[in-house]
C-alpha cells in the first residue's frame, strides 16, 4: 500500500487519499443533495417529512466527512486504499451481468438465461463445451419445468418474441 502525506497542505496526495477513503460517503452526500433539491418542488404538506429525513442524513454525512478529515490530519501517515485495480477488476463482472440483462430482455428468461449460462461457463469459467452445454441445458429445463409447467407461471418472453 502506498503511504501518503497526512498534511492538508501537501496536495494532491492528502486529498487523493481523502477521496479514496471517503468516496462512498461523498457519493451518498451527492445522492442526498439531489433528493433535497428535488424536494424543493414538493408542496408544503408533502415536503416536510422528506426534508426532515434528508437534512438529518446530510448532517450525519457532513459529520462523518469532518471526522474523517480530522482523523486523517491528526494521523501519522494514513495509508491510502488501493483503488485502481479494484475498480478495474469489477469491469468483467459488470460486463457479464450486462450481457445477461441484454439476453433476458431480448430473448426472455428461459432462453436468455440459458445462453448466458452457456457463454459464462464456456468463456469466463473455461469449462468444456460439453459441461457448459449440460449445465446450461439443465438450467433451461429447470426453469421451464419448475416455473412453466409445475407452477404455471407466466415467464418473461423477451422483446423479440413480441416482434415475431
Amino acid at each position, binding site marked *: 500500500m502506498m503511504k501518503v502525506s497526512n498534511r492538508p497542505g501537501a496536495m494532491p496526495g492528502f486529498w487523493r487519499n481523502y477521496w479514496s477513503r471517503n468516496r462512498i460517503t461523498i457519493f451518498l452526500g451527492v445522492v442526498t443533495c439531489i433528493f433535497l433539491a428535488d424536494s424543493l418542488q414538493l408542496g408544503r404538506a408533502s415536503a416536510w417529512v422528506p426534508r426532515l429525513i434528508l437534512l*438529518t442524513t446530510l448532517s450525519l454525512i457532513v459529520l462523518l466527512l469532518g471526522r474523517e478529515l480530522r482523523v486523517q490530519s491528526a494521523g501519522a501517515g494514513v495509508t491510502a486504499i488501493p483503488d485502481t485495480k479494484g475498480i478495474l477488476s469489477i469491469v468483467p463482472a459488470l460486463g457479464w451481468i450486462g450481457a445477461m440483462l441484454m439476453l433476458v430482455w431480448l430473448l426472455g428468461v428461459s432462453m436468455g438465461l440459458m445462453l448466458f449460462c452457456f457463454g459464462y461457463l464456456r468463456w469466463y469459467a473455461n469449462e468444456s463445451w460439453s459441461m457448459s452445454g449440460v449445465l446450461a441445458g439443465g438450467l433451461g429445463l429447470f426453469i421451464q419445468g419448475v416455473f412453466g409447467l409445475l407452477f404455471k407461471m407466466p415467464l418473461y418472453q423477451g422483446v423479440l418474441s413480441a416482434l415475431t
Partner: protein
Amino acid sequence: MDATVVNAALEGLSLVFSWPYFMYTIAGTLLAMLFSAVPGLNSSTLMALAIPLTLTWDPVPLMLVFGAFVGGATFMGSITAILFNIPGKSQNAVTLLDGYPLTQQGMAKTAIGCAAASSALGSTFGIFFLIGLIPFMREAAMLLGPPEYLMLAIWGLTTLAALSGGSMLKGLIVAGLGLQLALIGYDPRTAELRFTFGLDYLHDGLSLVPVFLGVFALAEVIDLMVSRKQTLSGKHHMEELTGSVWEGVQSVFRHFGLFLRSSLIGTVIGAIPGVGSSVAGFVAYGHARQTAGRTSRFGRGDIRGLLAPEAANDAKDGGALIPTLALGIPGGTGTAVLLGALTLHGMSPGREMLTDNLVLVFVLIWSLFLSNWITSLLGLLLVNPMARLSTIRTTRLLPFIIALSVIGCLQFRGLMADVVCAVLFGLLGYLMKRHDWPRIPLAIAIVLAPLFETNLHLTLRLHELERIVFWTRPLVLILIAMTLVNLFLPAISSRLNANRQGQREGSSAGDESE
C-alpha cells in the same frame, strides 16, 4: 385455561392427524418449500394462487393447506441465505449476516442444523404462546396506537444502526439513505409524487424484492466474480467441511436463554399488526448482539447471530395469527391473504371466529405447527446434499444464483425494470461491502419507512386534535428510553472503557517506576 379452549385444541389436533387430512398438511408443506426456494416468492404469493383453486373446498382442508403454506415457506428462504447469501424473503436478510460467513468457513452443516432446530423450536414457542393468549387476544391487541408504532419504528432503526458493526455514524447514514429511498413514489397522505425524477417505474416506489436481491445476492455474485474465489466454503470436498448438524442443533440448547428471548421477541413483534415479518428477525439479531459480550464474532460467523433471527422468524408466525384471528387485522402480507381466503369462505375473524369456529382456528394452528416441524426435519435430512453445494466451484454455481435472482425479480411483478433495479442495487451493495459499510440498516430502513411515515402523520394529527397526549403514554416513554440507550450507550461505554484502560496503563507505569 378455559375448558372450551382445551376441548377445541384437542379436537383440532385429532382432525389434523386423521386420514386423509394429514396428507393436506404434508402436500401443502412440500409445495410451500419448493415454491419458497425461489427468492422473492413467498407464502402470500402461493396462497393468492391457491385461493381460486380452494374456493369449493370444505373449511378443514382449507385451514390445513393454508396453515401449511404459512409454516412451510419460512425455512427454505433461510437455506438460500445460508448457502448463497440470497435472502429468500426480506425476513431472511438477517439470516445471511452470520449464516453465510459460517458457510464460507466450511460450517454449512452446523449452520443448517442450527437454523432447522431453532426454526422448529421457535415456531413451537410461538404457537404455544398463541394458544395461551387466545382468551386475552382482543384486549392485548388494542394496547398499541400510532405513537407506539412510530416509536417502535424509530427504536428499530436505531437498534440496527447502533449494532451494524464498526461505525454507528455509518449505520445511521445508511438507515437515512434507506428512508430516503423508501420515500420514492406517492405520498401516503397527499398522493403527491416524490423523487420519481420523471420515471414511471418509480411511481409505486421501490419494491423490496429487487432491492434486497440486489444489495445481498447480486452484490455477492459480483464479489465472487471479482475475488475469483474457488468455492463458497473455500473447501473442495465434503470431508473437509468442519462442524456437524448435531453441533448446530446443540447450539440452540447451549444458548437456550437467547433462544427463548428471541422467540418471545418474534412472537410479540409478529402479533403487532402492520409491523411486518422482517422486523422480528432484525430486532432479535440486535438483541443477540447487544447481549453477546465483547468476544462475539457477529457478522463473521457467530452461531448466535443465526440462532436468534431464525427462532424469531418462525415464532412470529404464531404471533401474527393473534391480530388476524382476533381483530381481523393481518399481522403481515401472508396473514392478509389468509384473511382474504377466510372471508371468501364466509368466516369472519373476531369474536365469532374465536367462539363459533374455534376448532377451525386450532386446525390452522396445528397445521402451522406440523408444517414447521416437517420443514425442519426435512432440512436436517437434506443437510449433506445442501452442504455439498458449498464445495462446488463458484463458477458453476454463479449462473444458477444469477438465474434464481433474475427469476425472483421477474416473478414479482413481471417487470424487466425490476431486474435492472436489482443490478444497480447489486453494484451499490458490492461497493458498500468493499468499503466496509453496513448493508443491513438500508434493508431495515426500507422495511420500516412506511410504518414510520404513516404513524408520524397519524400521531401528529391525533396530538393536534388533542385525542392523545404523546408524552404520557407509558409504552412510548419506554421506547424513547430504549432509543436513547441505543444512541448513547455505545459512546458512553467506549469512553468508560478508554478511561479504565488509561487508569490501568497509568497504574502499571507507576508500578514500573517504583
